[in-house]
């Protein structure tokens, strides 16, 4: 069976050959099966968000390839990959158009990756469909379809963005720390909604998170990124047994190794420079 997402040896260096050179991805290989829910964790600057961005097409990789459901999308621009990918961003303001109404935003999502012509965006049957699916969010938004998105709270916006990203079933759902900017209660609500949608639609999902409890409790596979590579890849029974504390220990290991590297480097500098 071909994996839904096949990442082969991708590398990316930002600001190459300058003082600000950042080797963000240093050869990432990852194959994700259809229907798998992968949680991605890592320290700041480990490359986890960059990895998601590389898949979404926010930039082109320097080398390596990306296949979605067997199709080579390495050279596809972001808007073309969107036909396959649904996304929710960290910033609740990123996923929706503020000045436009809820209904208009949903109409935009209902045509993700499809041609947009001169047909009416908000015809009656579309509005009925919007109301039905928004009602299931249980946020009372179904009666406010004509209100601008700007009038909603961050949690409501993220829930709506999630609904929009999955309105047409995507081959791949990318969640980039999509609860990090929310208060605990909203974050909890959005996480439960994410789990519900992913399970119901059997979506292949990659979720970046900073929350160790989310990382331990969600998904069937966990990737830990470090310095632009995949450090740990935990799945199956081992992932099920994983607790938040185990993850903290792994982070601690990484930190110690880094410290060791640094002190070793400092010692070498003292000795030889």
């Amino acid at each position, binding site marked *: 069976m071909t994996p839904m997402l096949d990442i082969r040896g991708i590398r990316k260096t930002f600001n190459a050959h300058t003082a600000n050179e950042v080797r963000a991805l240093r050869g990432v290989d990852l194959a994700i099966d259809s229907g798998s829910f992968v949680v991605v964790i890592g320290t700041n600057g480990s490359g986890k968000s960059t990895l998601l961005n590389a898949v979404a097409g926010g930039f082109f990789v320097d080398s390596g390839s990306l296949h979605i459901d067997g199709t080579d999308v390495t050279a596809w621009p972001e*808007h073309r990959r969107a036909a396959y990918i649904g996304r929710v961003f960290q910033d609740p303001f990123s996923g929706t158009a503020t000045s436009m109404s809820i209904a208009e935003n949903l109409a*935009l999502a209902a045509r993700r990756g499809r041609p947009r012509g001169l047909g009416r965006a908000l015809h009656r049957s579309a509005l009925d469909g919007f109301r039905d699916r928004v009602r299931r969010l249980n946020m009372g938004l179904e009666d406010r379809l004509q209100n601008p998105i700007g009038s909603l709270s961050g949690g409501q916006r993220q829930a709506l963005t999630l609904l929009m990203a999955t309105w047409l079933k995507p081959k791949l759902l990318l969640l980039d720390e999509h609860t990090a900017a929310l208060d605990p209660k909203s974050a909890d609500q959005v996480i439960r909604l994410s789990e519900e949608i992913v399970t119901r639609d059997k979506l292949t999902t990659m979720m970046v998170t900073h929350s160790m409890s989310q990382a331990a409790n969600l998904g069937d596979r966990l990737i830990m990124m470090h310095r632009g590579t995949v450090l740990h890849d935990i799945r199956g029974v081992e992932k099920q047994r994983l607790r938040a504390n185990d993850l903290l220990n792994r982070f601690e290991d990484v930190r110690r190794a880094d410290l060791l590297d640094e002190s070793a480097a400092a010692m070498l500098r003292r000795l030889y420079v």
Partner: protein
Amino acid sequence: MLLLIGALTIGLILSLLAFGVFITFRIFEFPDITAEGSITLGGAVAAVLIVAHVNPVLATLAAFAAGALAGTATAVLHTRFRINSLLSGILVMTALYSVNLHVMGKSNLPLLSERTMTSMAESAGIRLLGSPTLHLAGWEVGASDISSLLLSLAVAALVGLALYLFFRTNLGVAMQAAGDNAQMIRALGVNVDTMIVLGLAISNGLIAVAGALLTQYQGFADVQMGIGMVVWGLASVIIGEALVGVRDLGFLITGAVMGSVLFRLLVAVALRGGLNPNDLKLVTAVFVFGALVLPTLARRFRRPSRV
């Protein structure tokens, strides 16, 4: 009375300019200066074709195409070559000055006794009314003046309605979203660059039509006619927003027409009241400056200072 009708007519014609400025400045937040060149380009193309006895309606449509091309040029400079939006417009506007001179062959092209949309409307009006003058609320007005007023009203209403309906289509909604949140609409599969090209093409097409209609109304095209037009259009849009106050697109489009007409009337009254015509553009610029700054100042004034 004649002054009033003239101001109304020009105001309605220039509401197409306000529509164009609204699309670029408000929907895309793209400060498109191309307008100053494309309004003249529209006038020049229409004038040359009309002098060559082309049907004036076709000549006006040709002006739209020419303006759309100019807008496309600016958009391509910005999206393909990553040139700053303001500079892209300045480059195309500067280039258009030469283009317009070439199109017209000289700096001023009169339409003496050619058949224009204005003259067509005038003769139709006189034929319909049966007399060259009529009495309106105690005033004697020329049937021809009323006819050209009605023509520009019809054009402004028709274009405004078309624009409103366009922004209700899937494509139109995607275009608004491209201006509102590029990241989001890209993630939903829309090429933002294509939307900018399309938006600037429509905007400058409409502005060129404003130029074509203005040329036919005043009876000549002039290579200088575009100077200051962006600020005039912006003034109309700002007045319109102040008049309607809501963020609904239908209201804003109507507001742009009202703003354009009201601005023209203000100008006419000011000139009548003894304003030196040379000061007109200075006064306009100061007005737009005030309109841009006042809301911020008012907010600062209203908010109690924290101790």
